[in-house]
């Protein structure tokens, strides 16, 4: 697999140098691996910090800015960042109002953020954590690592970020983040595996004519392999999988998300099918976002995330946001 890179070892810092060049409104430090709002700490505001392995861009660094995250700590490709880095991020953005860690539910992310929270609390910061665990392909039981955090991360970061921007206290920001997390479910399918720079070859074999259902965002194989399906069939499967876990009694926010290499024209076609299925299931859609937002390097495929949204969540969703990856109203 060919990549537009220099050497595999420097992919993450190289990308951060590019972010620094393209986004002077952010404070990007390629060495200590932090992406921070240029105006942080923002007085009187709860700070949101997220992070995780790299390779999911624009998540998380691309969601730093007014109305969303205060800082992101990118780890190596698909590798949770380290506690020191997270604690440094927290210290850089805390205005005294406390810090909310948005953590995707992976063993590595959970353990490292836990350690970071201890470090930050040792420094006198108030830290709350919200776990994102939306992927219904994974059964949530005490005998598993629980559902993975995927597309819902964007909803949590956007909506909690909007509330924090309004000056809400840590408890309320944490509560709304938890509400969004609990109200969101996702399901994804891959048409091709991805290739990590370090490995240099696809993370799994996917023969022509087959697809993987129930994939995550780390190039891991899915739960099931099937003969290739049409966009409409995948939409049926994905939406029904989500709706088995989430029975919305309010309109939903929908994210039709590309895994990285699927062109927008295909994602929009898939979006049409997702809307068709939702209409058939009598689930009204309040807002739809289509694009490559929570990605898995150069994987081809898509995921669907639905979030049951009350009026307040929709208001916060519509609130202004100004980040490299998500921007409106500003």
């Amino acid at each position: 697999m060919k990549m537009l890179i220099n050497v595999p070892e420097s992919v993450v810092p190289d990308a951060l140098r590019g972010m620094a060049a393209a986004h002077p409104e952010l404070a990007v430090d390629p060495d200590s691996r932090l992406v921070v709002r240029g105006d942080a700490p923002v007085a009187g505001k709860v700070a949101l910090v997220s992070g995780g392995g790299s390779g999911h861009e624009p998540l998380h660094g691309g969601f730093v800015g007014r109305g969303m995250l205060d800082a992101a700590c990118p780890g190596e490709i698909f590798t949770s960042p380290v506690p020191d880095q997270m604690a440094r991020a927290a210290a850089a953005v805390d205005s005294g109002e406390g810090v909310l860690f948005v953590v995707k539910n992976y063993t590595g992310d959970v353990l490292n953020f836990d350690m970071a929270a201890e470090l930050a609390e040792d420094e006198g910061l108030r830290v709350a954590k919200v776990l994102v665990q939306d992927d219904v392909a994974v059964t949530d039981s005490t005998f598993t690592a629980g559902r993975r955090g995927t597309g819902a991360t964007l909803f949590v970061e956007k909506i909690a970020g909007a509330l924090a921007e309004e000056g809400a206290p840590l408890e309320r920001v944490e509560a709304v983040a938890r509400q969004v997390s609990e109200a969101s479910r996702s399901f994804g399918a891959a048409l091709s595996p991805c290739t990590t720079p370090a490995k240099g070859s696809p993370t799994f074999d996917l023969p022509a004519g087959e697809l993987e259902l129930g994939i995550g965002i780390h190039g891991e194989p899915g739960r099931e392999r099937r003969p290739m399906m049409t966009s409409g069939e995948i939409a049926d499967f994905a939406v029904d999988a989500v709706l088995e876990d989430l029975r919305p009694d309010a309109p939903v926010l929908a994210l039709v998300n590309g895994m990285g290499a699927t062109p927008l024209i295909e994602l929009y076609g898939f979006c049409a099918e997702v809307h068709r299925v939702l209409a058939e299931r009598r689930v009204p859609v309040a807002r739809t976002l289509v694009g490559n937002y929570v990605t898995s390097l150069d994987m081809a495929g898509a995921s669907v995330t639905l979030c049951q949204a009350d009026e307040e969540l929709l208001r916060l969703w519509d609130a202004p946001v100004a980040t490299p990856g998500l921007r409106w109203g500003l």
Partner: protein
Amino acid sequence: MVDGEALDAGFFSRWMLAAAEDVEREADRLTELDAAIGDADHGGNMRRGFEAVRTALRTDADGAGPGTPGAVLMLAGRTLVSTVGGASGPLYGTLLRRAGKALGDAETVDVAGLAAALRTGVDAVAQLGGAAVGDKTMLDALIPAVDALPRGFAAATAAAEEGAKATVPLQARKGRASYLGERSIGHQDPGATSSALLVGALARGGGA
């Protein structure tokens, strides 16, 4: 190094350096194993961490290195936590930090003492990650190794390697591999494999 001998800080440093060498050599294999049932980064994670451990041991205390077995393990553990990330960083970091802490500031330790300290570390790993033997994790190599350690390094190494191999038929219940459900069966756990490397490096703590 005869297994019964007193192990000093030099031994522990050499153990860590030997482990770093083994990890470096086997990094691609660890990544391959992780690609099959995880996210293809375990080799890179371990290499980065043990490379940092190597540097830390060299530069600590003005080049003299940490002075006690406990200090070596605690330094190595702290370094892994702050450079690896992922699941293995906090887990291996905790293993070594807690084992080091258990050793206190003794100047030397015998194999039985090492086994006891490592058991403390392994227990901490089990508690932190919520996993048990048979969940297809590093514990499947670490626990039998610690059990065998009082019988010597060779026994511990054999037990760790056997434990790692024994993960092949298991269905993962913790870590990323658990996402694959039944499809995790038939692959050797990368963390158990790296654990076997770490245990195997013990025997070389005397040389190199």
